[in-house]
C-alpha cells in the first residue's frame, strides 16, 4: 500500500488518518542548581508524563502501544540509554512495548510525533506515545559536543551558528525592520498572555505534578511552571543586558530561558482511536522540515511552512490558530513579517509562549501541539491550526493539524 504521490489535496491525506489524542507535560523548571528540578532526574520527568497519559486513558490497554518515541538533545546519562525504551520500562508499560530515542535538537518532540505519526499513517503502528525531555540543568546545551574541525576549516557554517543567541542576533541583522523595541514588546505580551491563560485555567489541566527533592528543603511538588515572570514590562526589558553582543538586541527577557521539563502525547490511527474510545483532539494534515543557513536558524519556520503549504495545497489564510515556539522573539517576528501577520495577532500564541513558560529543548514540540489541541476544542470555528518551530543547526519544522470539532466557519 502506498500513499498517492504529491501534491496532496487538503482532504487527501495518507493511507490512514493520524489522531493526536492528548498531550501532557510536566511543569517546566529553571535549569541550574537553584531550579526546582535540580534534584530530579530527566528520565523521571518523562516517565511521569507517560504515566499520566496512561492514567488519563484507562480505555487504552497499555499493551496496545506499538511504539514509544522520546526525544532528547543530549542523549547521555539520564537522557541516554535509548530513552524511549527505558522510559517505557520505567513507566510500567509492558516489556513487549518497544521504544526509541530521537534527536532533532529543539524539534525533538515534534520529530518524535511526525515520525511516529508516519508509522501510524503507513500502517506500521496503531498507537504510539511520542514526547521529549530536556533537563538543561543536568545537560547544558553543548555538553560533550565535538564539532568536526572541517565545519570551521571548510567554512561550512559561520562560527556563530552553534551559539543560539548569536544566531538570533544574526537574524536581527538580516531583518533590520525587527527592532529590539518590537521584540521586547512581543516578549512582554507573551508573559501577559501566559499569565492570563494560567489565571483562566487554560494552562494547567495538561500539567502533571512532579515530586521534587532538595537536600536542604526535603521533598516538594512541582505543580506550576517556574520560569514565567508575570508583570514584566517593556521598560524593564529594555534595561536587560545583551550577553551575545555589546549593544546587541537579544536579552534574557526576549528569549526563552534554559529549562528542564518533559512532554508526552498519545497518537493513534483514527479508526483505532474510535474502536478504543480514545478522543481525537487533532487530525494530522501534514508536516515538513526544511534546512536554512545554520547561522540564522531562527528563519527555519518560514521555508518549512512554505514547503508544507506546497505539499498540502493549503495557504496561510487557511490557518486559524498558530502555536509557534518562542526560542527568540525575533524569530517569531521574522515568521509573522514573512506571512504578513500582525505582531499582536490573536491567532498566534494566544496563551503566551516559551518566552514565558520556558523551552526545554527537545520537549517543546509536544507542548505546542498540546496547547493547539486544547484550543481546537474551544474553537469549532477553526478548521486548521499550525505548530511550528525553529531548530538549532539551521532548520525549521511545521506541522498542520485539522480540528475534528470543526463545525464550519462562522
Amino acid at each position: 500500500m502506498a500513499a498517492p504521490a504529491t501534491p496532496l489535496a487538503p482532504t487527501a491525506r495518507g493511507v490512514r488518518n493520524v489522531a493526536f489524542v492528548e498531550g501532557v507535560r510536566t511543569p517546566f523548571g529553571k535549569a541550574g542548581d537553584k531550579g526546582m528540578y535540580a534534584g530530579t532526574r530527566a528520565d523521571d520527568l518523562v516517565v511521569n508524563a507517560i504515566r499520566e497519559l496512561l492514567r488519563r486513558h484507562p480505555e487504552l490497554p497499555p499493551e496496545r502501544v506499538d511504539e514509544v518515541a522520546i526525544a532528547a538533545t543530549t542523549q547521555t546519562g539520564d537522557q541516554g540509554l535509548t530513552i524511549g525504551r527505558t522510559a517505557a520500562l520505567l513507566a510500567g508499560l509492558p516489556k513487549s512495548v518497544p521504544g526509541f530515542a530521537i534527536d532533532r535538537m529543539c524539534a525533538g518532540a515534534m520529530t518524535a510525533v511526525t515520525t511516529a505519526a508516519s508509522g501510524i499513517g503507513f500502517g506500521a503502528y496503531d498507537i504510539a506515545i511520542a514526547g521529549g525531555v530536556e533537563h538543561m540543568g543536568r545537560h547544558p546545551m553543548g555538553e560533550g559536543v565535538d564539532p568536526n574541525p572541517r565545519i570551521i576549516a571548510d567554512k561550512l557554517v559561520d562560527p556563530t551558528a552553534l551559539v543560539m543567541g548569536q544566531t538570533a542576533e544574526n537574524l536581527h541583522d538580516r531583518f533590520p525592520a525587527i527592532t529590539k523595541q518590537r521584540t521586547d514588546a512581543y516578549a512582554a505580551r507573551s508573559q501577559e498572555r501566559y499569565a492570563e491563560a494560567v489565571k483562566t485555567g487554560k494552562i494547567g489541566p495538561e500539567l502533571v505534578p512532579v515530586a521534587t527533592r532538595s537536600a536542604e528543603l526535603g521533598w516538594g511538588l512541582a505543580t506550576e511552571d517556574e520560569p514565567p515572570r508575570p508583570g514584566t514590562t517593556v521598560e524593564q526589558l529594555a534595561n536587560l543586558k545583551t550577553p551575545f553582543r555589546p549593544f546587541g538586541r537579544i536579552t534574557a527577557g526576549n528569549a526563552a530561558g534554559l529549562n528542564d521539563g518533559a512532554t508526552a502525547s498519545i497518537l493513534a490511527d483514527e479508526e483505532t482511536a474510535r474502536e478504543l474510545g480514545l478522543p481525537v483532539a487533532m487530525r494530522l494534515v501534514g508536516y515538513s522540515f526544511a534546512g536554512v543557513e545554520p547561522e540564522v536558524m531562527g528563519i527555519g519556520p518560514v521555508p518549512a511552512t512554505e514547503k508544507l503549504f506546497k505539499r498540502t495545497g493549503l495557504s496561510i489564510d487557511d490557518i486559524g490558530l498558530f502555536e509557534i515556539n518562542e526560542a527568540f522573539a525575533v524569530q517569531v517576528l521574522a515568521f509573522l513579517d514573512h506571512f504578513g501577520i500582525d505582531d499582536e495577532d490573536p491567532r498566534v500564541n494566544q496563551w503566551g509562549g516559551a518566552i514565558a513558560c520556558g523551552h526545554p529543548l527537545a520537549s517543546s514540540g509536544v507542548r505546542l501541539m498540546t496547547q493547539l489541541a486544547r484550543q481546537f476544542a474551544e474553537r469549532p470555528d477553526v478548521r486548521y491550526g499550525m505548530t511550528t518551530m525553529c531548530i538549532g543547526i539551521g532548520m525549521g519544522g511545521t506541522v498542520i493539524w485539522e480540528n475534528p470539532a470543526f463545525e464550519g466557519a462562522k
Partner: protein
Amino acid sequence: MTFTAEAAKAAFPDEVVTHAKTRLIKVPGLTKKVALITLDNGHDHTRPNTFGPQGLVSLNAALDEAFAAEPAAIAVTGKPFIFAVGADLSGVEAVSDPELAREIAQTGHDVFRRLTESSIPTFGFVNGAVMGGGLELALSCHYRTLSENTAAIAFPEVFLGLFPGWGGTQLLPNLIGADAAVTVIIENALAQNKMLTVKQTAELGIVDAVFGSADYLEQSLLWLARVVNGEIKPERREIDRGSAWDAAIARAKSIVDGRTHGASPGATKAVELLELARENDLDRGYAAETDGLAELLMSDVLRAGLYSFNLVNKRAKRPAGAPDKSLARKVNKVGIVGAGLMASQLALLFVRRLKVPVVLTDVDQERVDKGVGSVHAEIDKLLAKKRLSPDAANRLKALVTGSLDKAAFSDADFVIEAVFEELGVKQQVFAELEQHVKPEAILATNTSSLSITAMASKLQHPERVVGFHFFNPVAVLPLLEIVRGEQTDDASLATAFSVGKQLKKSSVLVKDASAFVVNRLLLRFLGEVLVTVDEGTPFDVADKALEPLGLPMTPLTLMQLVGPAIALHVGETLHESFPDRFTVSENLAKFVKAGKKGVWIWDARGNASADPEVVELWTQGDRPSTSEQVRDRALSAIAEEIRIMLDEGVVAEAQDIDLCLILGAGWPFWNGGITPYLDRSGVSERVNGKPFLAPGVASVPAS
C-alpha cells in the same frame, strides 16, 4: 516532650541525626497548603533513617512548624527508598542511665502522638523501608500510603528481645485487629524476623493505598487531597474486642511459650501490652509501653539482643582474622567428590550462587547419575515454585555434570570433598585429587570434626587445603566454619572466604581443632546431659532442664535430628582429643548399635514419651539429678569449654562463639548466643573466675 535540643545531643553525641524538614507545598485540589515533612539523615539508602534523641527533637520542631502553618494536611515521608527503620540501636546501647531510658521511651510517644491527636488530617507516606519506630510513626498518622517497591516492612522488636514501644502494641491491634497484630508483632518477629510483603501489608489494612514507585509521592499527595476533600473515605475495619481478641492473645502466648519458653522478657511484655490494647486507651497503653520500655532498656537481656544484632549485621560481614580479600583467587569451576546427599546439596548451593560449572564424581556411574539427577530434580522443584525462570533452570542444569574420572577436575579452581568421615579415606581422596588438579586449586573438606592439618599432611601442596564446614540443611543455615590448617596459606584462605561470601554464608575463621566450634560445644553440652541420664536422671527431667534458655530444640531432639550415629562419631573424635571432658556414653553406643534413631516417640496427639525399647537398653545408675542440677552442670560444662576454646585460640573472641551458635545452631538471638547468658547468670564467674565479655558489650554499661 521532655528533651531539649541540648539534652538530646548530650544524651547521644554520636547520633547520626535523621533531620525532619517541613516544607509547605501546593497540591492540586486544595486551597490551603500541605505541610510535607521529609525525614532524611543526609546519607544514601545504605544508612537508613533512624530515630535517636536528636532525631525526635528535630521531628518535634518540624511538627511545630507544620502546625503553626495551619495547613490542609500534614504528611510525613522519607528519603529515597527509606521511610524510617526505627530507633537508633547504637544509641540504645550507649544508654546507662535509667532516667534517660525513660525519657527516650516517653519522648517517642509524645512526638508521634501529636500526629495521632492532630485535628488537622495527618498522613504517613511510607515511601520505602519501614520498621519498628518508623512503622509506629506511620501508624501514628491518620492515614497511610505505601510505595509498591518497599522492601522491608516489619516490627523486628520482639526478634531483638524488645517490643514495639512507641505506640506499636496499642495502635496496630486497634487498626487491623488483634490476631493480625499478633502475626506482625509476635509471630513474624519470632520467625527469624520475617518481613511483610507490600501485598500483605495492604491486605492486613496497615496502609490505606499502595502506589507505584515511579510517581509514588505525586500520587500520594493527590490521594491526600481527595481524602481531605472527602472524596475518598479510607475504610477502617471493625475490631472484635471480645472472643477474637481472647483467641489472638492465646495464640500469641502459645507462640511466645513455644519459641522462648518465657526466657525473653520483650516477647512476654509484648503479649501483655497487646492484651492491654483491647481497651483502646492510648493514655494507659502508652504509659504501660513507656514503663515497660524504660525497664527493658535497662536490662541485660535486651542488651544481649542488641549484641546479637551487631554480631549478625556487622561482625558476620567482616570475619575476624580473614586475610585481605584481594588475595582471593577466582573460582570458575567447582569439583565435588562424592555424589551422595551432602554432595548433592553442596552442588546445588555452589551452582546456584557461583553459576559456574560444577562436576560431581563418585566411585560408580550409578551413584554419579543419581547425584546429578538429584541436583537436576532440585532445580526443577525451584522452577516449579517459580523461584527460577526456565532459562535460569536450563543454565544451572547445564552447569551440573558428573564424571567417573577425576581428570574432569583438571581445570577446577575449587574442589570440595564430602566422602566418608574417616581420616584415611579423606587423605586418600586428596592424594588422588592432587594427581589431576592444578597446583593452586583449593582442596576443601566438609569434615565436621577431623583435623585439616592431618588431612593435608601428605600432599605436595598442603597450603591449599581448607576446612569448609557447612551446617545441615546446607541451603538454610547461614553459618560456614572456615578452618585454617597449620600449612594453609593466606591466598587459599582468602579464596575460601570469598567463596563463602558468594555462597551468601556468614563465615567464621576457626583454628584446626577437633569438631571446630558448634559441634564441639553442642557435643559437650549433649554429653553432659547424657551423663546425667546415665547416672539415673529420667529422660524427660534431663531433656527439659534447659528449657529456660529458649533453645530451638531440646538436646535429645537435636541428637535425633543430627542422627545418633553422627553424634556418636563426633563424640568419639572429641573423646580422642579431650578424653577428660568428652566422655562417650556406652548407652549411646548401644543405642546406635540397636539402630535407634531417637529417644522420644510421639503418639497421635503429639505427646512425647520415651521409647520403651530405649528405656530398656539404657542402663541407668541410681544417682538422679534434679533439673536444676542438670542445667547447672550443662551450663558449667559449656562455660568451661568456651573458656578453653578461647584460650586455645579456636576463634578470635567470645563474640565468634556466639555468632556461631546463633547462625549455626539457631540459638536465640535475644539471648545473645550463650556467653551473655553465662555472664549474666554468674556461671562464667563461678566456673572460670571471670566473665567472657566486658561490661557494656552485651549488658548495660556502667553509668
